[in-house]
């Protein structure tokens, strides 16, 4: 026993324990930082924030102490580590919401925490302004920490595991990703985090310049860089009614929803990379196209009178949906059905691979569309050899299969999730848009659960289903699908290090 506590005997061997321990320690640091913010602000809830931090530290520390990094990491092991650490950190991250009495019911606290760590931004908190600064800081912090993990996952880990054809991420622009999970992944992570921190600081400064106070600037920068979307104001960005703030947030969201591989290259001086990579071009085309179309629809439907106002609403909402951030300025559930449907459609692919944005990712949409159109070509020339292309690069058939397989599972999850949520007691629009929003980690949905409302519109069981969808979408489906397999050891494993 003594040996255990002193770390002289490590009884748990497995990546899952190490990663979970690290994640919990990080969460502890985050909660402690929130406690510091609370202390500065007045400190009513200081103790309520300190003891969860202590719990996180102790749990994480003990786990790290008694676990050993395994010699070899299997695919299933890596998936399980990612998924379980996300679940663990979400559970521990829910404790401050309970201890401060912000959300007195355990499943509400868990929902808020899951929504935070998955960078979704769907909330069940109604009285936001009535909460202490510490807990609001923690709420934004969950997203920022989630984003920190995600950047590494999206750029380095998932492509390495070839999830849903994500290895294509380096087809057009090789990034900093490593070919082994260890130990160089640490260097990759450091590089990516530098970019991520840099973005956060930049956004904070920009927001301060355009007139936000420090607390709001920091929390909004957290949520924008991680494309999460939690705001310490109940009317989100709409509270300020300032064009300058909206412009800063739009730019921040667009950067957050774009690939960090490209940002990394750009920081190294290769600015042309944004123009070379076809997915980045598509990302900008989608943003511009959606803004233009929304502007027209808003004017035609008479939602906005002037072109300027329509453009402002359209640009903000296109960016917030495509980047999967979920900040709000307008209640788009009052718009015409075509504008709303357009937003719903944009939620499905959402942003770029290698970013913190959710959704199926534009890269996969590119491959999917070309795969479908190739069949039209083949119907006329059955023997033709037509590769699916990304930019000018032909994509290998097995990669195409992985992408298509991913897309099919994604679509199926939306359909079944939508039916389930609807059957649990909401109308069709609210149910299906909730499923699309949750699996895409967008934040707001349509119908009853729009930006001006909360996810309390869904009955508790439906919120449970949405929570599962958030995790499923966030961890690129496969991590969740395999998270139990690692424990059962039912599936034979591939040695990652032997590639």
């Amino acid at each position, binding site marked *: 026993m003594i040996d255990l506590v002193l770390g002289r005997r490590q009884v748990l061997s497995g990546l899952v324990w190490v990663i979970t321990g690290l994640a919990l320690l990080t969460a502890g640091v985050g909660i402690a930082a929130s406690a510091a913010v609370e202390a500065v602000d007045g400190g009513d809830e200081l103790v309520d924030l300190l003891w969860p931090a202590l719990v996180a530290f102790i749990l994480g520390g003990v786990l790290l102490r008694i676990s050993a990094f395994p010699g070899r990491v299997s*695919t299933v092991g890596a998936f399980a580590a990612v998924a379980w650490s996300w679940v663990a950190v979400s559970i521990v991250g829910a404790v401050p919401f309970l201890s401060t009495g912000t959300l007195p019911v355990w499943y509400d606290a868990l929902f808020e925490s899951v929504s935070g760590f998955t960078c979704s931004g769907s909330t069940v908190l109604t009285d936001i302004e009535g909460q202490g600064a510490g807990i609001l800081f923690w709420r934004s912090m969950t997203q920022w920490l989630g984003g920190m993990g995600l950047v590494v996952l999206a750029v380095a880990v998932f492509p390495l595991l070839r999830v849903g054809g994500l290895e294509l991420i380096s087809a057009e622009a090789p990034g900093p990703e490593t070919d082994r999970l260890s130990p160089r992944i640490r260097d990759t992570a450091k590089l990516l985090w530098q970019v991520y921190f840099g973005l956060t600081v930049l956004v904070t400064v920009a927001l301060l310049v355009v007139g936000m106070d420090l607390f709001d600037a920091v929390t909004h920068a957290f949520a924008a860089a991680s494309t999460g979307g939690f705001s310490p104001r109940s009317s989100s960005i709409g509270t300020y009614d300032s064009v300058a703030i909206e412009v800063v947030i739009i730019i921040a969201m667009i950067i957050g929803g774009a690939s960090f591989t490209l940002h990394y290259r750009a920081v190294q001086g290769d600015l042309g990379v944004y123009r070379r990579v076809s997915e980045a071009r598509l990302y900008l085309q989608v943003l511009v196209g959606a803004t233009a179309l929304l502007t027209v629809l808003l004017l035609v439907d008479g939602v906005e009178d002037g072109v300027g106002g329509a453009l402002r609403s359209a640009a903000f909402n296109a960016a917030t949906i495509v980047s999967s951030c979920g900040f709000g300025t307008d209640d788009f559930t*009052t718009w015409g*059905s075509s504008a709303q449907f357009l937003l719903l459609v944009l939620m499905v692919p959402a942003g770029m691979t290698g970013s913190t944005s959710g959704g199926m990712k534009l890269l996969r949409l590119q491959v999917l569309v070309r795969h479908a159109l190739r069949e039209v070509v083949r119907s006329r*020339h059955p023997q033709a050899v037509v590769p699916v292309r990304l*930019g*000018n690069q032909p994509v290998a058939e097995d990669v195409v299969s992985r992408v298509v397989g991913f897309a*099919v599972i994604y679509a199926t999850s939306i359909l079944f999730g939508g*039916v389930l949520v609807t*059957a649990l007691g909401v109308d*069709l629009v609210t149910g299906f848009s909730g499923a699309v929003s949750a699996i895409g980690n967008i934040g707001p949905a349509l119908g009853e659960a729009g930006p001006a409302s909360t996810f309390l519109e869904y009955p508790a069981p439906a919120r449970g289903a949405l929570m599962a969808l958030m995790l499923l979408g966030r961890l690129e489906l496969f991590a969740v699908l395999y998270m139990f397999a690692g424990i059962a050891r039912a599936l034979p494993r591939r040695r990652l290090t032997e590639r």
Partner: protein
Amino acid sequence: MTAGTGARRRPSFADGHEERLDQRRSVAAVGMAGVAGVSATTAAICLVVELLTGAEEWLSFATTLVLAAALAAGLGLRYRLPPVARTTALLVGVVWSSLLACGLVALPYLVSGLLDPDAAIFEAVAGVTTTSATTVRDPGELGHGLLLWRAASQWTGAAGVVLLVVVALPQLGIGGLDPGGVVTRSARRVAPRASAAIRRLGAVYVGLTVIAGIAYVAVGMPTFEALIHALTTASTGGFSTRAGSLGAFDSAAIEIVAIVVMAAAGTSLPLAWRVVRRREFGALWSSVEFRMYFLVLVVVAVVHLAGNGVDDGVPTGIRQSAFASTSAISTTGFEIQSLAAIDPGAAAILILGMGTGAMAASLSGGFKLVRVMAVYGFVRRELVRQLHPGLKASVRVGRSALSEPMVNRMIGSISLSLGLLVVGALVLSAVDPALDSSTAIIDAVSIAVTSVANAGPADVGGASLSWPAGLGVVGRLTSSALMLVGRVEVTPVLVAAGLTSERLTVLVPRRRPNRQLDR
């Protein structure tokens, strides 16, 4: 096929271009002549019925008869089917024939002046594509001739689809429904020659219609209405003689007959032929697609029952759920309860069921279950491959392995249909004033799904039975287009519209000289 290794085959357009055009024209002309001939025959029958029962609209049918007969004679005498026809020629023929069919069917509605031009076109397209949506608020006000014309358009439309699906499309492999590939027992070729196959499958279809008619009469439906409903049930069309669809009869027996006939119409015709003709009842259950069909029917009914409840007693509740499930999955579209009036969860599962459709090579619309099963097999393989990247395994449906091109065709066709749905719903919600309120988003989506799947009922603000009547001109034309494209599939339409390989590759992947390919 490994990307980037094989040299791109560049077909030369200099040689044989004229010949191909000729071929395309002949095939289209023969197809259109056939359609015109069938329309003329139907018009003649309706003319007789109209003259016998009241003769109000005899002029419409006489006009149609003359025009269709002239067209059939003109085209039929001038053109002959070429000995060999290329894929493109057949696809173009299919698309033009269906367009002509819609035009001819619309003629009596237009001449009689009962419907506006857009409503007439909608009614015709809904008929030919066997969709039950109708612009006629109360069919009871129509004369016997027109009622028969509507029902006959569905019956012949479905017959055309059998011809298409069982004889033409499989040769082309559109959507992966190849001969022999369409999975095992359910669609193994029924006869070595196409003509014999058509005769046998036609016999099953006619037999089902006759049995349905007799059964309807036996349970107390008036004879003429029984005839109409037999035509529209066996074809999974769903037009009715009454404003309240089959629910207007308020008869449990009639509903049960409809359930059985609809379920039968959703069964693969080759499979049905084997079961009936060869007395191989075991073949039914040994078909993996049929087992799936049965399972889906039951599951959708149970979910519907769970959502809808049993307020009117358990037997009624079960009957209603079985009816709703069968009507949706066979894409017939008869209603006893409006889709907008039931529990949202139940409505969601029904809309999903319409999209899925019933068995391949049946009379139903939708994706077809075999494709859904193939996609499931594909996903399962990808899940295993994620862990074993080098794994060589084929996608299986039941015991049969599907070839990679076929799997790709199936998935490609599903992607295209989904794309069509999204674009359709977006256009519908953008152009139709009736669908542009902030709550109309589900109306637009459900109209798009029901149109593409050729089902009929949609979840539209409380009045799902006559949703087309509430639409504007553009909305009706848009959903007509969706029905038509849904019925003949997206690929033939794209090919017939000239969106062929050369242009597509410019449109989508940028074609620059590629060192790897030109090596």
